[in-house]
């Protein structure tokens, strides 16, 4: 270790170093490297940072420009939120800004949402510039329960999702799927649902992680009155803030009121609370602070939209992580084999997918669904078919392969889709297409077996094509069902494909 000092004394010095120096110290020697990267050290370092008396509480601030640039910075917890440091943001927004799910011990959890569906999650430790990209196993609507937090017993960061598939003609009532991602394990795990979920949420990612528990704002599913924003249309604005003074004690909910003049600027959006202060965003993105005691509103001279505040502590978590995509292990999958290996072995095919984001699911009856996320230049070599030729760039593609018959079917969706499993022998593909953007003309599907779904009330053409290219056949489609405001389900009858 050191010629002069034993390891336990060295550790005490290391705890006092800033994150940047600590990361540099991993290249001192092998012993120092494994000491600093050890989970025990990282966890002890975190405990020390949190319990330290001169531990600075920091706020994470996200500012978005019109040019779709996201700037993240850490701000000091002082009166004016002075900037502590700018963070290097390594991700590219595809269609909209990232959603911030939460932040815990300096780790930030982001969600990438395309057309109201979450296509990936990111765990990001900006201070050590490490991140991991996590593909969800369940296609989840924006309005599902998502929570991020730290499991102090397992020294692990976890992401929990509860996707409530709304009542459907095809599915039984209350069909929530729960899954949990563990950073240590690097994989998703399904959580069996033992009781029906009686709650919905109409909030985008509104979870709060406190005392080791994830909290959500929820509505009783059987009561249609949700939480409504009460706004006064007079010249003043009133915010009612409910505070649970004693954690877990329902009787301790206390109401605080902030009233101030609106000055014709509309109603500000509440962003967060710190001490006796409510932070709000005014109409044009300016951030103001309202003092709950003096009822005074003060301009913070910070501009940005939207704005998130989270407390953050410098942490070494994820120091061992290599940046990139998390391993995808699907419980339904034949294993985390790279796609081209998978196909070559079974079909003599070589598929070259530059995109890492592939996923295969066993759908039963010999069918495998392979998801390719935005294939930019993918080729099925033996068949000389370019996926990009067949379908526009940037769309997710699901390829269905029957391992018994070698039948290959392409399904295209805009702009994200997932093969989610099977239902009574049929393949379900959840489509993330936006309803308003699909015209009747684009409906190129034939409806062979519509009668097999007796209650199908609405058929909306989804820009999707299924073609049996391996047999040179024309595109044949079974049928699909649509769910409004949740998944759009595309159901393919395995039997009807096999008949072709």
């Amino acid at each position, binding site marked *: 270790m050191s010629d002069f000092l034993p390891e336990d004394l060295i550790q005490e010095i290391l705890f006092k170093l800033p994150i940047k*120096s600590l990361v540099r110290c991993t290249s*001192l020697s092998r012993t120092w*490297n494994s000491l600093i990267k050890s989970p025990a050290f990282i966890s002890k370092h975190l405990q020390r940072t949190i319990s330290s008396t001169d531990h600075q509480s920091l706020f994470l601030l996200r500012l978005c420009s019109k040019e779709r640039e996201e700037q993240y910075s850490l701000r000091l917890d002082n009166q004016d939120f002075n900037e502590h440091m700018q963070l290097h943001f390594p991700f590219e927004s595809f269609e909209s800004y990232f959603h911030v799910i939460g932040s815990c011990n300096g780790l930030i959890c982001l969600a990438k949402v395309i057309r109201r569906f979450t296509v990936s999650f990111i765990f990001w430790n900006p201070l050590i510039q490490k991140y991991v990209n996590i593909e969800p196993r369940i296609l989840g609507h924006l309005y599902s329960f998502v929570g991020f937090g730290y499991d102090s017993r397992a020294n692990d960061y976890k992401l929990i999702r509860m996707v409530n598939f709304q009542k459907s003609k095809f599915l039984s009532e209350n069909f929530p799927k729960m899954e949990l991602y563990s950073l240590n394990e690097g994989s998703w795990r399904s959580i069996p649902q033992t009781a029906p979920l009686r709650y919905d949420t109409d909030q985008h990612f509104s979870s709060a992680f406190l005392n080791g528990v994830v909290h959500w704002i929820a509505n009783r599913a059987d009561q249609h009155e949700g939480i409504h924003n009460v706004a006064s249309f007079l010249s003043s604005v009133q915010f009612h803030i409910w505070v649970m003074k004693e954690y877990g004690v329902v009787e301790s909910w206390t109401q605080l009121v902030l009233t101030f003049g609106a000055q014709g600027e509309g109603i500000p959006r509440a962003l967060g609370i710190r001490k006796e202060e409510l932070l709000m965003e005014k109409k044009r993105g300016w951030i103001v602070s309202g003092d709950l005691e003096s009822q005074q509103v003060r301009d913070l001279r910070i501009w940005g939209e939207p704005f998130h505040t989270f407390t953050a502590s410098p942490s070494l978590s994820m120091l061992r992580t290599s940046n990139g995509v998390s391993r995808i292990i699907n419980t339904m999958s034949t294993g985390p084999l790279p796609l081209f290996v998978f196909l070559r072995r079974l079909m003599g095919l070589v598929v070259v997918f530059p995109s890492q984001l592939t996923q295969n699911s066993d759908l039963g009856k010999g069918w495998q669904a392979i998801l390719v996320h935005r294939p930019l230049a993918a080729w099925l070599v033996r068949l000389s078919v370019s996926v990009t030729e067949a379908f526009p760039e940037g769309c997710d593609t699901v390829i269905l392969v029957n391992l018994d018959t070698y039948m290959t079917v392409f399904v295209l969706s805009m702009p994200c889709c997932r093969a989610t499993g099977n239902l009574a022998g049929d393949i379900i593909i959840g489509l993330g297409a936006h309803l308003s953007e699909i015209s009747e003309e684009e409906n190129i599907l034939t409806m062979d077996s519509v009668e097999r779904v007796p209650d199908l009330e609405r058929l909306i053409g989804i820009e999707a094509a299924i073609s049996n290219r391996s047999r040179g056949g024309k595109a044949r489609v079974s049928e699909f069902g649509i769910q409004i405001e949740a998944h759009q389900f595309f159901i393919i009858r395995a039997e009807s494909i096999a008949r072709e």
Partner: protein
Amino acid sequence: MSSSAENPTLTAEITKPSTEIATETAQSAKKITLKTSDDQIFEVEESVAMEFATVKSFFEDAPSSTDTVPLPNVPAKPFSQVIEFCKEQIKFKANPDETEKKRSNSEFVKEKTNEDLVEMIPVANYLEIKDLLDVLNQAVADRIQNRSVEYVRSFFGIDNDFTSEEEALLREEHAWAFEDVDED
């Protein structure tokens, strides 16, 4: 590379061979006799010696002992500097003034060499002087935090056992951490 010898006025007040000290301080408080690993005898005031948790518990076990307390892990040179620190500290016990205490602590470490600091750490640890250990660890951290890997290696006497390829890879992985480092 300062030693107690380079600081004659200061150390003379604190540490003197027991024979001389006896006459000078006959009227003052009770003295405790301590023997370092290199067989030097130190006589320190009881109030100062009670700052050393290790020594304090020795007397808690044997309250009436007048024996010399052996300090087998403590060499004389860093020990004299530790005594210097504790003498300052007890002033703040009667008269707590956090600003002045901080100033005094930073003054104390400022004039110490890297070697002084590193030598005092095991002594402060053995004698269980928490405040001093904190001050020393912070001082060492302050001295190395913006320094290059090579500087830190020589500071702690670390042998680099990485191959040049491995080291280059590590630097590449965390390139940002190697930017804006102070010149050696």
